């Protein structure tokens, strides 16, 4: 696929306005002297060397295109005294086409011919233009300030409702959650996206996917905010604070015959598949090729390919078995100018920043805290497997732990970055099955102590309670796990951090340990979803299956996706058309597991809650609200009741109208029918009166109870 071809835009792109990009990258139409370029800073030579120089120049510029016959013209200056002619240090080249001339300018302006000669290449027509530029500096006219829409306007909803996006058939709609009532539509567009939609992590933008690239939408009017040209884009990833966007396309960037003019790409981007964009300006910051393994073959795409540190300051990717490359923003350069080489490295994870840290930063803390990441390496030769915590940018190793007998490792950070749980799959002695160890690093404590929890069974899923000190795991000891697709018996277990009891003298006695709280046995779960605010948990059963809640169990047949709303009050289970075509639609539950509504939608594809940014309230303010929750909830409850009555009134009126319409129609039709019958001479039989016509059937049932025969003797 070549660059970006206006003539081949699909129908569905009609809505998108390309004029901004077109004008930005427009190629001025060239005429007359457009095929001629002026090359300055050419070495000054005399006649003897003229031939050699021209040959050399020709060699350079023929890479840009076909030079016309006698297309190179180097003016010579003849010294009247000596009669010797020398060149003037510049020459003209005429190409076959203006495009070739443009390419030559693009590629060879600032070209170092040798140490002292750096070529300056310009369009012939530009020379005239530059010579006519006025000497005096004129201040450019200031662009009028256009106020942008409030991108977080949805948060100002008086009832603090949440939005979600629903993708069904070709329609994408933004809806307000109205609890038990059908959701209210905020905005709807047909063919808004070509493949799927995605929210940015703080909910500011809605990203839509198109053949040509990504578009971000938002604000109350849902206008397009910005667009990123990346042909064939398949996957995107926002940085945690929405400052940057990473896009991946399976097509390599190709500049096409016109050298990438009309696209944001330059020669350095050619062949690359990953692009990092600045969300605010829409500029391309840097592009990367897909990572390749040692033998040069492209690796399987793992997404997100670049993992962002929580502050958006660093992003990194791993080249398996070789290195971790950490880049800095906004310079996009490698931290410390080189990748961090770790032999055999498999995977890494950033430590999430925790809130206290962020608050400190906001308060203008002088010392810029380092960010931390963890990575692990498998056993290589005699060297044991190892999990390492590493500070960035200092690249100082904080903690390492050696492990043996490791089959696989998964690292799970708790959302505050307080704990890191490393789930280690180990072979049993027979090597036939695996069991798991959970190694929990207590990152906030001195020297980072590690606690080990042994689990006898295979751990399928692991999840921390958000911001909490509890976690849940799903385990199974079913030998069929991994082979049969259904009906694997699993257990769900919960653990919590037991706080050490303070001793008499106020000293800490004992250490905090993770203890098992509860196990739910014999469920067929396969994934855990904590509600965003913790406290409640939900598991998703094997597909097709039902959803389980800790508080109650609910069935939803053929569920494929589970989505908690950002406040943790509602959860939506949905069955997507992408997976199967039965009972597509979604169900909305409250956190107690009560069904609020169920919508069956044909060709239902996707539903995503709009995320909310972090609360701006300080923890004190939050505490205060929690304390006075009753007063607050009173007002909301009243509102809810009011809304309910108004809705039922509306519904009632609607029904009444329907009945009236129907009755009116019946009256008209019946009259027409009577008239027509009369005309046709058919006798109008009055409607049978049921009472008169009813035929009563009486059934006599005689049953012989007993029959005895007595012989009467006389």
């Amino acid at each position, binding site marked *: 696929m070549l660059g970006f071809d206006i003539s081949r835009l699909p129908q569905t792109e009609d809505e998108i306005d390309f004029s901004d990009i077109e004008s930005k990258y427009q190629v001025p139409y060239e005429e007359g002297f457009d095929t001629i370029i002026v090359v300055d800073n050419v070495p000054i030579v005399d006649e003897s060397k003229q031939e050699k120089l021209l040959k050399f120049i020709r060699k350079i510029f023929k890479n840009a295109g076909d030079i016309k016959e006698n297309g190179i013209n180097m003016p010579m200056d003849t010294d009247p005294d000596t009669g010797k002619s020398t060149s003037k240090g510049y020459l003209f080249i005429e190409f076959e086409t203006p495009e070739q001339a443009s390419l030559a300018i693009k590629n060879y302006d600032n070209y170092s011919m040798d140490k002292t000669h750096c070529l300056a290449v310009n369009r012939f027509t530009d020379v005239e233009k530059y010579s006519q530029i006025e000497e005096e500096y004129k201040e450019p006219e200031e662009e009028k300030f256009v106020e942008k829409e409030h991108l977080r306007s949805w948060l100002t909803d008086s009832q603090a409702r949440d939005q979600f996006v629903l993708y069904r058939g070709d329609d994408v709609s933004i809806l307000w959650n109205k609890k038990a009532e059908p959701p209210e539509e905020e905005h709807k567009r047909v063919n808004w996206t070509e493949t799927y939609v995605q929210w940015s992590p703080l909910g500011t933008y809605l990203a839509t996917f198109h053949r040509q690239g990504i578009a971000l939408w938002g604000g109350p009017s849902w206008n397009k905010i910005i667009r990123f040209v990346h042909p064939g884009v398949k996957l995107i990833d926002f940085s945690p604070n929405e400052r940057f966007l990473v896009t991946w396309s399976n097509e390599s960037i190709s500049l096409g015959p016109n050298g990438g003019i009309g696209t944001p790409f330059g020669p350095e981007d050619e062949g690359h598949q990953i692009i990092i964009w600045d969300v605010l300006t829409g500029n391309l910051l840097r592009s990367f090729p897909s990572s390749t393994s040692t033998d040069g073959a492209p690796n399987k795409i793992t997404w997100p390919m670049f993992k962002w540190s929580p502050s958006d300051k660093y992003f990194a990717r791993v080249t398996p078995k070789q290195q971790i490359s950490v880049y800095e923003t906004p310079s996009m350069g490698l931290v410390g100018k080189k990748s961090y080489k770790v032999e055999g490295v498999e995977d890494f994870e950033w430590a999430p920043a925790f809130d206290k840290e962020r608050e400190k930063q906001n308060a203008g803390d002088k010392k810029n805290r380092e960010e931390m990441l963890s990575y692990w390496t498998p056993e290589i030769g005699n060297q044991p497997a190892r999990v390492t915590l590493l500070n960035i940018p200092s690249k100082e190793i904080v903690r390492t732990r050696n492990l043996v007998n490791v089959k696989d490792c998964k690292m799970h950070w708790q959302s505050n970055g307080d704990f890191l749980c490393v789930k280690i799959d180990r072979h049993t002695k027979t090597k036939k099955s695996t069991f798991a160890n959970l190694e929990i690093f207590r990152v906030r404590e001195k020297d980072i102590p590690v606690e080990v929890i042994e689990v006898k069974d295979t751990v399928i899923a692991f999840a921390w309670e958000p911001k909490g000190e509890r976690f849940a795991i799903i385990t199974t000891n079913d030998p069929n796990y991994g082979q049969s697709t259904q009906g694997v018996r699993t257990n769900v277990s919960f653990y919590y951090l037991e706080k050490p009891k303070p001793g008499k003298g106020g000293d800490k006695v004992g250490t905090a340990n993770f203890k098992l709280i509860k196990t739910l046995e014999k469920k067929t779960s396969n994934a855990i979803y904590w509600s965003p605010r913790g406290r409640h948990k939900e598991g998703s059963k094997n597909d097709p299956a039902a959803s389980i809640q800790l508080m109650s169990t609910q069935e939803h*047949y053929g569920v494929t996706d589970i989505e908690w709303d950002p406040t943790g009050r509602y959860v939506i289970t949905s069955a997507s058309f992408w997976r199967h075509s*039965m*009972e597509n639609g979604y169900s909305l539950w409250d956190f107690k597991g009560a069904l609020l509504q169920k919508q069956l939608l044909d060709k239902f594809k996707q539903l995503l809650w709009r995320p909310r940014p972090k609360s701006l309230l300080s923890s004190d303010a939050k505490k205060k609200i929690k304390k006075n929750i009753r007063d607050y909830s009173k007002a909301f409850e009243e509102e809810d009741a009011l809304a309910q009555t108004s809705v*039922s009134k509306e519904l*009632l009126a609607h029904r009444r109208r*329907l*009945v009236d319409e*129907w009755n009116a129609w019946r009256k008209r039709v019946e009259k027409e029918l009577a008239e027509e*019958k009369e005309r*046709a001479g058919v006798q109008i039989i009055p409607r049978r009166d049921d009472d008169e016509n009813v035929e009563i059937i009486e059934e006599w049932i005689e049953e012989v109870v007993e029959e005895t025969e007595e012989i009467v003797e006389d």
Partner: protein
Amino acid sequence: MRPILLQGHTRSLTQIKYNPEGDLLFSVSKDHVVNAWYSHNGERLGTYNGHVGAIWTVDVNSTSTLLLTGSADNTAKLWEVETGNCLHTWEFKTAVKRVAFSEDDCMALFVTEQRMGFPGTVTIYSIANDVNAKQSDEPIMIIMPEGSKAMVSDWGYLNKYIIIGHENGSISQFDWKTGEKVKSIQPHTDVITDLQMSEDRTYFITSSKDKSAQIFESNTLVPLKKYITDAPLNSASITPIQEFVILGGGQDAMQVTTTTMRQGKFECRFWHKIFEEEVGRVKGHFGPINTIAVHSDGKSFSSGGEDGYVRVHHFDEEYFKFKYPEL
């Protein structure tokens, strides 16, 4: 509501029909048998034997003297209801998929299958309403619908038009005297599986595999109501007394073995006719429902399923008391 289970067929039901008084229920099935039942207690009145192929369709005249059946043995038969005697047999080139008496019983239409090189037709014969009379073998009109083949058909009021439901989901209105198409619409996107007239034939309901049922005005084919469900529908019926429609269907018979009963959606669904809202379901069949019929007094209804059973339901007291909330 305790249904009466009629176990008189060994294969799946294809159509059931009440006589106009509603005391009799006729059922036909793929097992070549026509059964007549007393609708109030489910007792079998008798059978009509003679077909040698699956029977697709049945209709009874307004005086309950004559019974028409159409079969896959390429014949349609006229029976005397009382005695079970076969009065006449019409031979066709292909299977007979639908039969229907006209409103005045003087004619009947026969929808024949498009197969083996023969085009599908809607053939109209005149019917002599006398048990002893000889029936005519000369059709009044043969309509050959162009484009998509005819699946179901019925008469409008006063024999003005006949209405045909097609395989591609379109509905057309024909003038049977000239055999010309008057009107055509495309309201469904898949096969139309059933078409039932209202009592006075001023409107009718269609069911389709596209999971929806719709009500149209007979004269103008103006769509009036639409009921969108989550399962392919095989039958739809309009109830007297309460303003309901009953829809039945379920997953395709071919796919039934691959799914559970729960997923098959083999329930009779009650929808409010005017509000287009579902009000209830009646479970029972363990295969898709092929046909639904409502008693003319609106006090009971029956359903026939792929599972070979006919279930006769007499509504409970509460059904008649049901009123839409606050209306």
